[in-house]
């Protein structure tokens, strides 16, 4: 049975996920998205994974959410408050959401997952470190290269071609 902290985190996470998509202002939407990401970090704490939780807080809440917030601020004021959506499509989307929730939920409730409980101790974070440098080291190097490539790609994409270099320094 779930405890009070779990229920509170569920309300925060699901509620702010809906708010992130449905709030009129994109700025408040991105702040609500921060709530969702923070709620997931709380779930990681409940799952005895403080290392992943702190990583989530640092990377998602600390950098990605702030990056999204700054991008939103680059957009024109009227576009921030404009909801672009079709009414009929919205009802269809809500139907699709409910179908996925009910069908997948029913499948999981009917499966053997319901009986899985554990009394064993949580995984030590030193094991994760060992995993990274022994079994997963090629993936770790590849991930570093992907990150470097994507950041370089993002910089090249966002670079303005119409601004000369001397204008840039001024």
């Amino acid at each position, binding site marked *: 049975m779930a405890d009070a902290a779990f229920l509170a985190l569920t309300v925060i996470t699901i509620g702010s*996920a809906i708010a992130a998509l449905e709030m009129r202002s994109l700025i408040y939407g991105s702040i609500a998205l921060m709530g969702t*990401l923070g709620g997931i970090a709380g*779930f990681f704490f409940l799952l005895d994974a403080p290392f992943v939780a702190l990583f989530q807080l640092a990377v998602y809440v600390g950098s990605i959410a702030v990056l999204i917030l700054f991008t939103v601020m680059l*957009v024109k004021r009227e576009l921030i408050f404009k909801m672009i959506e079709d009414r009929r499509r919205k009802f*269809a989307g809500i139907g699709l*959401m409910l179908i996925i929730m009910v069908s997948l939920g029913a499948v999981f409730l009917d499966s053997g997952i319901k009986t899985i409980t554990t009394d064993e101790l949580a995984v030590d974070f030193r094991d994760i470190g060992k*995993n990274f440098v022994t079994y997963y080291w090629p993936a770790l190097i590849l*991930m570093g290269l992907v990150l470097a490539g*994507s950041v370089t790609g*993002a910089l090249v994409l966002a670079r303005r071609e119409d601004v000369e270099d001397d204008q840039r320094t001024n």
Partner: protein
Amino acid sequence: MTNELIDFTLVSVAMLAIGIYGLAVKRNFIRMLFAVEIIINAANLNLVAFGRFLPHAGGQTMALFSIAIAAAEVAVGLSLIIVAYRMYQNVDIADFRSLKG
């Protein structure tokens, strides 16, 4: 543990459904990126939850990889938004159908 695996799985199913709703309904590029983030977080929650209940260190390792790759994805996605906004002065994806420039 007082919380069971099924509780975490159901939360992640709900988040997946909300994310798919966002991708299906919203036409704003930035909101669609929000929806993708919500789906990725639902997947991470499942990874860590299964890793805790098995228990196995692989779940948390994969979640860390996933978070790092998601950071790269957001950086590229946001720069694409900036480029598209500069071209079309809009964030409606209906306008981005022709990527001719």
